[in-house]
């Protein structure tokens, strides 16, 4: 999946701006309160996988369907 960020030009004056942006991104993405709802899949009380509901809508049973569909394409 491609990112919609500008190409980072490597030069003295851009570097610090980009670092600042990257640090900001690191804070505002993946952290903070989440309303949309996430799924944490735990095994034996250990959190293993954290999945955003924006990408996962159907259940794991349909994984076979998806794979079968791909094979016939």
């Amino acid at each position, binding site marked *: 999946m491609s*990112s*919609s*960020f*500008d190409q980072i030009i490597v030069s003295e004056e851009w570097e610090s701006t980009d*670092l600042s*942006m990257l*640090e*900001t*991104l*690191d*804070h*505002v*993405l*993946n*952290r*903070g*309160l*989440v*309303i*949309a709802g*996430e*799924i*944490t*899949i*735990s095994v034996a009380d250990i*959190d293993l996988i954290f999945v955003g509901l924006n990408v996962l809508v159907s259940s794991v049973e349909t994984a076979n369907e998806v794979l079968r569909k791909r094979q016939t394409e």
Partner: protein
Amino acid sequence: MKLYAYCLVEDPDAFDASTRGISGATVRLLQIDELAVLVTDFNADTIAVTRENALDHAAVVRSVLDRTTPLPFRFGTLVTEQQLRSYISARKPALQTRFAHVRGCVEMSVKVIRELSDEIKTQSRDEITTGTSFLEEKRREILGSEQKTAEAREIETWLHEQVGGLIRDEQVTIRPSEKLVLAAAHLVERDKIGQYKEKTAAARKNRPELHFLFSGPWPPYSFANIELEFKTQFGVS
């Protein structure tokens, strides 16, 4: 009509009505019970992850930090007013606990890069044809990675020793097999920021083989999440 939510605040007086948010929209305060949310109107279903939008988000959350400690929402929180009200009413105790936890604090970040010694591949891929040589190669990889893990944990322990006395809480991630071996978020009381900065500056000098990035103060993004409390309470994952 959707809302873009930036953060929750306990103190509505901290809000400055001249604040502008994403796409220059006017930020307003939505009062929900005793809490308030900073929102802008947003009339699409998606929000692009662009530099501009991310910076706008950060700026709005930042705008209240001088006067109060907000609970930031994650970037991309697009909701209806109803969803927002339901969310807050349902989680009020957990949110109050979170506010109590972060009150008077800010987040300071530490990231550490350390050089990885080159992997010595003992066999090329083509030479691994037997099951036994496959497992032997895995064994070498695993031993190498165990050493890296020990190194990463040592850095984590060391860092904690340096700042432990000055922080209220921490969120630390280590990635033993990467150059960016450690990323830590520290919840620091505001009147301790000076001491924290001194401590970290001194600590960095003691580890010349490590490369450090310090940033802050930030609103407490890493300490806002209440998911854990929610999970414990209901036994649901």
